[in-house]
């Protein structure tokens, strides 16, 4: 441990952080899982989903972007915050068109898994079902925007990891969409199925064709253990 190690308090537990770490990075290293949807360990944070919201000295902040600072008192796993997180997940469900049993991602889907972990049993908010285009033009990859949570992972991955900028956003507000770097459709872009962007979508929106059912339902990532278990176990083990 270096000399300028920082100590922060999360839900009453003192944990160590390195200077420059975000609250989420520090929590991960200590085996404390903070729910997240747009954040991904291989990408810089996006700040889109707000599911990682914690209270830092009483004020809400996104753990994936907020730096760890000596002496912070952080609340995360409380009834109040988990209820707020659950409502945000519920919003994402009603925003799009999510019929899990018919979706290739079911069982591997982080949105679905967060719903389970946060105790979202049924949606009470009215469905919006925002109409959005599907793009199946590419031979290996398709986009079903009805399942997009606008987490921006594909945008960041394509730009920063693949160096291609195949994806971006278009529009604003409830009309915001994931857009592709082409006049018409994905097939005209530099997209390849081996791109990082092709395998980073948390939901069943951006999907590599022909692989969906390789692992049978029941044996998928979150069929056996809740999302976040890897972080919790890593530290325990």
């Amino acid at each position: 441990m270096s000399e300028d190690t920082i100590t922060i308090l999360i839900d009453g537990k003192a944990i160590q952080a390195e200077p420059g770490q975000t609250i989420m990075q520090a929590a991960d290293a200590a085996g404390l899982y903070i729910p997240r949807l747009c954040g991904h360990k291989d990408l810089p944070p996006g700040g889109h989903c707000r599911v990682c919201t914690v209270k830092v000295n009483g004020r809400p902040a996104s753990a994936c972007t907020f730096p760890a600072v000596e002496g912070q008192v952080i609340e995360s796993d409380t009834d109040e915050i988990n209820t707020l997180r659950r409502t945000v997940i519920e919003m994402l469900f009603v925003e799009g068109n999510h019929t899990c049993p018919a979706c290739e991602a079911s069982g591997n889907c982080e949105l679905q898994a967060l719903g389970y972990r946060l105790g979202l049993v049924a949606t009470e908010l009215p469905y919006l079902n925002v109409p959005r285009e599907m793009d199946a033009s590419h031979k290996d990859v398709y986009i079903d925007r009805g399942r997009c949570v606008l987490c921006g992972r594909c945008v960041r991955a394509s730009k920063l990891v693949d160096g291609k900028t195949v994806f971006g956003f278009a529009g604003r507000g409830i009309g915001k969409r994931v857009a592709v770097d082409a006049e018409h459709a994905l097939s005209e872009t530099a997209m390849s199925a081996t791109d990082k962007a092709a395998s980073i979508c948390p939901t069943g929106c951006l999907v590599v064709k022909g692989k969906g059912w390789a692992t049978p339902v029941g044996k998928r990532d979150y069929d056996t253990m809740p999302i976040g278990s890897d972080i919790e176990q890593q530290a325990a083990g």
Partner: protein
Amino acid sequence: MVEDYSQVIDQIVEQSGKDRSRLMDIVRAVHAKLGYLPEEAIGCIQQALGMHRVEVRDMTSFYSFLSQAPKGKTVVRLCDAVVERMKGADEVAKAFEEAVGVPFGSTSEDGSISLDYTACIGLSDQAPGALIGSVPVTHIKPSDVPRIVEALRGGAEASSLPQAVVDVNLRQPGPVVFAPMERGAAIRKAVNMAPAGVIGEINKARVRGRGGAGFPTAMKWDFCRKAEGNAHYVVCNADEGEPGTFKDRVILTEQPDLVFEGMTVAGFAIGAEEGLLYLRGEYEYLLPHLEQVLAKRRSLGMLGQNVCGREGFRFDIRIQMGAGAYICGEESALIESLEGKRGAPRDRPPFPVQKGYKNEPTSVNNVETLCAAARIIEKGAEWFSAMGTKDSTGTKLLSISGDCPHPGVYEVEYGITVDKILEMVGAADAQAVQMGGPSGQCLAPKDFGRGISFEDLSTGGSIIVFGPDRDVLDCMCQFVEFFIEESCGWCAPCRVGTTLLAKMMRKVLDGKGTKADLDALRKLGTTVKTMSRCGLGQTAANPILTTLQNFSSLYDARIKSDEFIPSFDLSKALQLGAEITGRTAELEEHHV
């Protein structure tokens, strides 16, 4: 066709120095030439700047004044904000639709006129108003419309219309912003002090930001000055988009010199060589005069090298036009827009004073704040802090509109009560007062004894009066609908939550609400407030949350019963099927 404009575009891009961060200017110039942004044009811009097509679209698709589809020769943008609708904008809209022959959101068949709605254009004191091209027209009556349309079809310039008049409407000038000024007086005093001395004087005056958040200006300047960077920047926030605000319009019309004076003083204090004034797209008509004033100041040695004779103090100001996005008033979104990107706010920290424009330390200040700063240097902190209250020194500009006979701008000392304001504007019988615009709070008469100040009723200046017969809750729903239009969409709680709030609120207003719906509104509103990423989302539920608190009886009157009423209308859903099969979709009334 493509070749025609590819040359034009190359030329525009060349003029910008092939600078990506000037994408806004490039796109605006192309848009002005072509009337919209066809894919081919995007392709030319993308190639000329070495960007990806999706990056250019990412920016252009964000702004409401940039169209992706062809538009009519003249674009009429009728303001449909709450105050405008209180003043008859709906009837004016109907008259336009009749005269042009197409509904809003479309273009006449002959391609002469497009009809669009737009959010508040800063003319609520002379509503209903519209922008025709960039020309503001005010006090439009439905009976004026046929002649307006006829003139436009005949090729007349919008500026020649009799309604193309903007009243200044400065009802009460005060000592800080609207007193006569001597050009250069504040700068000459400032440059004879050290930068720290300037900040010290501002600090002594205890002036706080007038843009809404109320951050102490001296502290902001001091942070910015001390932050390390290759350059420092002063930004004047003239995006004034909060519905019902128009005081910055009046300042920019009447006292532009004072604004530039304040920017220059700020530049000296924080060590900046460049100042940027971000002017909302709706105020383009103010641009020529502002440019003239800047040119005048350059010729007087108040901008440029050795400003006001101070050896080594170099400072100039550039005006950046926006293109229709309320969120660009939020300071980090404004900076993104200044850099030629979509106006999506940034996560903080880092704050703009640490990493702002071009990632360098930047002080973003409201138009009115900069005027106050210039006056403090000119007349001294003591003079300034003798006005107002203990924690809110000086004066505040109020933009007052709605159900009152004397709407306009009033410069008042902090501490003035709502009662006094209502008396001033002739609206003592008000049912409710919207303090601080949609993002503020809706006040009931029990609160009218309270005063305007940072310690009590804080406001950026928008005050909307609702008279005794006004349907306040309907206005609140319209406010939330405004936030739907203006949400940047970056984060889930605001993007989805605003749409849900309006939908659930409408259900209640339509008389289909129950107690459970009110609880659901409260829960959803709290979630949007707590979980959203920036001030827009954090305040978007305020119209509902503050009326649930202050006007619960209005809600109770709308609620039918405690029974569950579904938001899903089965008869309506079956309608299409019924029509096709030729049967009726009347369902038996059933009771739960």
